[in-house]
């Protein structure tokens, strides 16, 4: 019962959140349209996709670390890691539900936006959007794994999550296009996977860009993942080893 209620509250929360941004975009009206020409010109549609897809950033950054922390606090981590299943598999599957739930959340945002707030998704390229979701998940997961490594050793106060999370919201183009940022700041935006993920998602869903048309953003996410996944796994392995040497693997 408590799970159903929690799900229902999430849905209602999504409605309220969308409604706030809808009225905010009405307040700003057409004045922001010139900044959004490459996304179709509608600020509310731009915001809706930014907010929805930034859920992946949140889950990617927090999901793995939270899974470890929850199991440490619950006391179940020891029983898990004495099994032959590797810790990385355990944590990946513990976080899987969170990613599925984030996907469901995005869907709810898009459906509410379409049916209650007249967002036009008639041109949406669904296949391209799905590919972007997958690439986004993998790219954000690498950051999440690094964050989890930190939790594994230091147990709390994760600076990776804090830094990447805040920078992404500021520079990743969730609430405004990065083109309004000063030129020098925009350079930092291009170091963040969220920038590519949001740009591609907006183009795919609002303007129906083809996979070929989105290939440069997809490639950026792919390169980011190809570089960061091995690095993050290496860091995670190092963190587990360090915790085992210190005997603090299951401490909380």
């Amino acid at each position, binding site marked *: 019962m408590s799970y159903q209620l929690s799900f229902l509250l999430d849905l209602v929360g999504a409605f309220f959140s969308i409604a706030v941004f809808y009225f905010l975009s009405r307040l700003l009206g057409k004045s922001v349209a010139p900044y959004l020409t490459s996304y179709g010109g509608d600020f509310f549609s731009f915001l809706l996709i930014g907010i929805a897809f930034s859920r992946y950033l949140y889950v990617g950054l927090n999901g793995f670390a939270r899974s470890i922390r929850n199991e440490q606090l619950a006391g179940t981590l020891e*029983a898990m890691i004495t099994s032959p299943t590797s810790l990385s598999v355990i944590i990946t599957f513990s976080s899987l539900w969170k990613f599925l739930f984030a996907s469901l959340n995005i869907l709810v945002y898009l459906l509410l936006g379409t049916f209650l707030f007249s967002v036009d998704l008639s041109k949406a390229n669904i296949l391209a959007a799905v590919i972007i979701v997958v690439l986004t998940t993998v790219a954000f997961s690498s950051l999440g794994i690094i964050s989890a490594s930190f939790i594994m050793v230091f147990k709390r106060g994760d600076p990776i999550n804090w830094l990447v999370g805040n920078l992404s919201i500021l520079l990743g183009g969730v609430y405004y296009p990065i083109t309004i940022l000063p030129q020098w700041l925009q350079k930092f935006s291009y170091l963040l996977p969220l920038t590519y993920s949001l740009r591609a998602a907006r183009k795919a869903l609002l303007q129906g860009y083809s996979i070929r048309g989105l290939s440069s953003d997809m490639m950026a996410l792919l390169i980011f993942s190809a570089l960061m996944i091995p690095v993050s796994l290496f860091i995670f392995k190092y963190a587990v080893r360090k915790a085992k040497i210190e005997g603090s693997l299951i401490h909380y």
Partner: protein
Amino acid sequence: MRKKGQFAAVNKVSIKVKQGEIFGILGPNGAGKTTFLKLLATLILPSSGKALVNGYDTVAQEKMVKSSLGVITSEKRSFYWRLSGTRNLKFFAGLYNLNSKQIQGKIEELAHLFNVRELLDARFGEYSSGTKQKIAIMRGLLHNPQILIMDEPTQSLDPSTIHSLHLIIKEKIVREQGKTVILATQRLEEAKELCHRIAIMDKGLIRFCGTITEFQRITGYNEVLTEPPSLEKIFIKFINSEESS
């Protein structure tokens, strides 16, 4: 050997445990018993030396070691309290790559062995301490390991539950199934009841290793072993006698 800060939590420990044996690790708080068991369970890496479990190196062959071991603690928090006993057991069995048919069969077999069949559908949080500990031992046995590591498995249980668990460990798990048990305890009467051999640890060092009879002979504490023991007393006298000799 395991160093913790400036001292070795487990130092110069050399023990061989035979197959089908119940081996007790005794010692006061902070003696290094749990650290020693965690080294065997691959939860802690040794800073030097090595441990073999079922012939497998705990560092180089971690996965094989884990498959050979069932780890049982008295930590009741190590379960999901909102889930039923069955769901908990199914979840943990899944981590040992058992298929659903094997899991079902094993849970039924163990539920019968531990006489908890009718309790398994209740939430874990609603169980008595004794039932929780039974479920913990069942979890350790799900993948049919050759060796069981038990860290104070009867801690804070009532005498009747302790007696029934002792019977299961001694008769069913060791005598009938031929498993090896390495058990850490602070209670000498538990060691006397269960263990073929014991090791006494203090400050990370093994002070004695042998049978209870040998321990009695060395310490001259026959009379204490037949009454509720004061391990601290025996231990302090034993350590003192070791130091003076």
